[in-house]
């Protein structure tokens, strides 16, 4: 008789392993995740004398989703290479898609406390309309998907924690250091602005900054931002489907 299996349970397994149990058993993890995004936000607000408060808050929201993907890459590498959890899961009825989705959810759960705090700050200081809120949530969602998919693909190619650290460093530069998330791109000197556009996070930031009225860009440029952001997301999902190593060749 074939056993009826619950995909919900399989998703829950990742959430428990990678976030809830980690935060419950090691409370320091919870405190760290709560504090981490505020360090840059506080510096930005202080340096700008409050002028970048609103854009800083939306920047922190985007950065939280991107950081989730970077964190996922490190977590998946650790669980795969050091704990061999992934090997046990590959040989179980859980599919790669369910595993990645569950791990992605776990990062969301991990980020939930800080997102809640940032959402309250956004409500107080940005007063977004419903449309603006939807745009911010959509951009965060797309950023989250491409970052976790990228994290998963890279993690399947790592064989030890050193490689994982290498990928984490590169992802941090490309996805969080280069892009002007906490401030407008015009703050970057002209010859270097082009570099910022290497990162998909820049397009996400432009859309959100435009939505809350912090910067003004043409409809064409806004459309380009959406196309690039969604295109990168789709491309990474396709790459993950075709190239990520679940069962090794």
């Amino acid at each position, binding site marked *: 008789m074939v056993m009826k299996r*619950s995909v919900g*349970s399989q998703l829950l397994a990742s959430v428990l392993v990678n976030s809830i149990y980690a935060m419950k058993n090691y409370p320091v993890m919870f405190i760290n995740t709560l504090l981490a995004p505020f360090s840059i936000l506080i510096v930005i607000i202080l340096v700008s004398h409050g002028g970048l408060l609103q854009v800083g808050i939306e920047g922190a929201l985007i950065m939280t989703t991107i950081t989730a993907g970077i964190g996922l890459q490190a977590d998946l590498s650790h669980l795969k290479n050091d704990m061999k959890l992934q090997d046990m899961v590959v*040989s179980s*009825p859980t599919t790669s898609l369910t595993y990645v989705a569950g791990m992605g959810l776990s990062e969301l759960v991990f980020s939930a406390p800080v997102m809640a705090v940032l959402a309250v700050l956004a409500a107080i200081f940005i007063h977004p309309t419903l449309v603006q809120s939807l745009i911010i949530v959509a951009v965060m969602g797309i950023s989250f998907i491409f970052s976790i998919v990228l994290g998963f693909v890279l993690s399947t190619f790592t064989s030890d924690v050193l490689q994982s650290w290498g990928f984490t460093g590169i992802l941090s530069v490309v996805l969080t250091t280069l892009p002007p998330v906490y401030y407008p791109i015009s703050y970057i000197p002209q010859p270097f602005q082009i570099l910022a556009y290497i990162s998909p996070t820049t397009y996400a930031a432009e859309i959100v900054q435009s939505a809350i009225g912090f910067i003004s860009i043409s409809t064409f440029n806004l459309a380009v931002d959406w196309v690039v952001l969604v295109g990168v997301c789709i491309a990474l999902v396709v790459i993950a489907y075709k190239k990520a190593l679940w069962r*090794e060749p």
Partner: protein
Amino acid sequence: MRGVVCKGISKTYDRKTYALRNMSFSFPDRGIVAMIGRNGAGKTTLMRIMATELMPSKGSATINGIDVVKEPGRVRELIAIVPQEARVMPWLTPRQTVLSYLLYRGFGYHEALTRARRSLGKLGIGKFENVLGHKLSGGTKRKVLVATVLASEAKIIFLDEPTTGLDPISRAEVWRLLQRLKSNYLIFLTTHYLEEAELLADSIGIIDRGKLLAMGSIDELRKKAGQQYSIRVTQEVKPRSLRGYKTTKFEGGHQLMTSEKKAFELSDKLIREKARFTINPVSLEDIFYRFAKKSIESEETSGGGDEW
């Protein structure tokens, strides 16, 4: 057919490095099968292919009649594996470890929790169920991993070196556990401990450089090796009866492997000669070295016959 069947399984890397070469075998769906071999012999590669983690380069394998290569999803419903370097996650308790794995297998939360507690209890580690992984001893950690797969519905269990790194007492505990389980499960294990394979396994495969050199019960391997008995003479001077035979010298004596018939003939002669000796069935260690053409002792050549 129920059980495991492998036909001509090969695995190459870069089209030139052979990890496995044309490996074929079968065994039923109950009992313990042990694969022994040196480091890099191909034991883990074989296990990973059978457990659907790795694709073979050639050949086919089935588990209970389901193709491992073509239908991995169906095979995964039947199997569970504890990989060689699997570790208990230090931030999880044993109960959380087993529960999470059962959730991955698709059990509902409450059933998973019940099964987790029952499995930990069965392995005698229920009292540690709420202790964080990093506080557990090495033996308990290993038992937690075994409890994890045994709590599932899978009846074909792959254990890659399940007792490596355990102290003798913990190892003996795991052995007792596996012996208790073998009437209801097919346990496919790899090991470096020859005594472990000899003690536990119903069928033993000897692998070297990706080749399956021999497979069968210990008695079948003795027959395949052609020598069923080992005569160990514990005196420096080689007895007259053994002169003319190719023996192996060890510290304080000489060893001769031979057929059953010749062993009894020689033991009569040795008794008459009043030599100090023991006669025993050939051990798995002797067989392993025979097949792998490895010897830790220097050989003294002094004659012909069927000895080595």
